[in-house]
């Protein structure tokens, strides 16, 4: 086994890990704001992917496809929050969770009704095809794009949350809901927008994944489990825990592929076990 291969897989893992991080970041925002585990997150990812795929195919513009994926998932998320989750915030966890479970089922089946059971694939736009010569290896340009794009998006959301007024409201909503409301901030609208943002990020991750893995009917469920594992690894104390955790998951998965490709998905869970044994509260979780 050459060192080159390890470095290459490390880079591949970073790209995949950034995608996981983006996905789980949205899940973390929703969890932080509304205190619910979003079981529909995988469905938002799939909706984003399919909408991006269709828009890209019709118009030929990948950028427009990504935008459509983001907007579509965001709108679906806001509708679900407005008319479903938002009405259940006073109920027990289990009801919110079941609602999202039901919504996930419906969305998954609706995707099959619209796009059929057969998967599909689409190559990246021309300027992202081919590979970059890094000296020791040829690195696919599209993987580089995923890494950079995810980093840019995560940074933009970080900026939105940490440096803008809207972000200050969101942070206030996460920390002290009642107090935020008492200060005259419309917390219902904030929750709807926050949920939409989280869902939109999942849709964006779905769009970015299209040229990499194509679209399949089960893509949502597969990604949902990974996003949950990433959030569990990251811990629930901070919405940013998802980012290092996503990278860990992606890199572990890619490195294991060198030796035992069929174990790569299982290894993410082994990583989760290792982290939980060492830190039961997750990487950035609070005690």
């Amino acid at each position, binding site marked *: 086994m050459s060192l080159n291969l390890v470095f290459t897989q490390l880079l591949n893992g970073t790209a995949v890990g950034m995608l996981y991080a983006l996905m789980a970041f949205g899940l973390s925002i929703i969890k932080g704001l509304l205190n619910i585990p979003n079981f529909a997150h995988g469905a938002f990812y799939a909706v984003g992917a399919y909408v991006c795929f269709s828009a890209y195919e019709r118009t030929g513009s990948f950028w427009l496809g990504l935008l459509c994926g983001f907007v579509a998932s965001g709108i679906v998320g806001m509708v679900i929050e407005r008319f479903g989750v938002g009405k259940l915030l006073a109920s*027990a966890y289990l009801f919110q969770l079941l*609602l999202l479970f*039901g919504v996930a*089922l419906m969305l998954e089946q609706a995707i099959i009704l619209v796009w059929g059971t057969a998967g599909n694939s689409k190559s990246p736009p021309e300027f992202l095809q081919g590979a970059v010569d890094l000296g020791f290896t040829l690195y696919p340009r599209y993987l580089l794009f995923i890494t950079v794009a995810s980093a840019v998006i995560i940074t933009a959301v970080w900026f939105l949350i940490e440096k803008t007024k809207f972000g200050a409201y969101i942070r206030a909503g996460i920390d002290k809901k009642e107090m935020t409301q008492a200060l005259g901030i419309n917390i219902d609208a904030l929750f709807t927008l926050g949920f939409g943002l989280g869902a939109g990020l999942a849709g964006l991750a779905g769009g970015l994944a299209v040229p990499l893995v194509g679209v399949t009917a089960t893509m949502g469920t597969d990604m949902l489990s990974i996003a949950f594992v990433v959030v569990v690894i990251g811990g629930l104390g901070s919405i940013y825990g998802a980012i290092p955790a996503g990278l860990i998951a992606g890199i572990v998965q890619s490195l294991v592929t060198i030796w035992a490709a069929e174990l790569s998905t299982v290894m993410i*869970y082994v990583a989760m076990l290792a982290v939980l044994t060492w830190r039961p509260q997750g990487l950035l979780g609070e005690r």
Partner: protein
Amino acid sequence: MNPRASRRDLLLRAALLAAIAAVSPLLMPAKIAAEILICAIFACATNLLIGYGGLFTFGQGAFYGLGGYAAGFLMARFGLPWPVPLLAGLLMGAVSSAIIGAFCIRRTGIYFIMMTFAFNQMIYYLAYTFRNITGGEDGLAGIKRPPFGLPGMTSLNLDNPTYFYIFVAAIFVVSVLALIRIVESPFGRVLVATRENPRRVASLGFSVSLVQLVAFMISGAFTGLAGALYAMLYWIMPIDAVHWLNSGYIVFTVLIGGTSSMFGPIIGIFIWLQGFFSTLWARWPLLFGAFVVIVVLFLQGGVIELFRRLSALWGRRERAEAS
């Protein structure tokens, strides 16, 4: 409660469970009735955690699947007497839920839910990966139902649908009765107390995490047993049994029936005859999802709540007529 009243109570429940098992095959094909009783064991075991322990698990499918795989593997490869695969399913459920439970109960609330789900998916991908044991995507095929026999009795071929149904029904009655006894035992009271006020329970000298872990194991054991029966039912253990949809499905049936008694989940299973609907339309999860959403939004108390509302409505009308 005095012992005689409690024994009468238990007999009454046994009779009720036996009546449920006896009437079901008259209303539907025996195979579906058997599937319903198997799911009912699964649902009651899950309710031990959700209703009594207040532990909102979303990963019971893992133990159902593992129990089914353990039993199914033995039945497909070796011709062992009938108690062996059932015990294997039970033990597999107990051991795996002890290990997974030990990780999960250290956290509460959402983190707990997410961890149970994550472990469920871990088992799913393990089952998917190790196809030489589980059959992977195609399911574990070639399962043979062992003949049923007791000392001093000619053995019965369980491939006969009637015998198999009676076999399942007997295990259903015994299992649910055992679960009822467990929740009414001192242990069950302590478990309910850990749900209501864990600090108080700790200050009384009980270990909350130990009580929860034991509940997890008991629930896992019965879930594994149900899984073992499921492996016998269609002579195949499908990978769908370990899928998170199965975990969500069972949580939902427990909730629509009502969590306050072990009979609630049984009602829930009868309301949503999964085996029946899934044969009608390949896209049936769409309807199931819509049903879940409607129930959760408008009928949170489950069917028991529906009864209560109807009787309240009835009472109002009677009062209006009287006045």
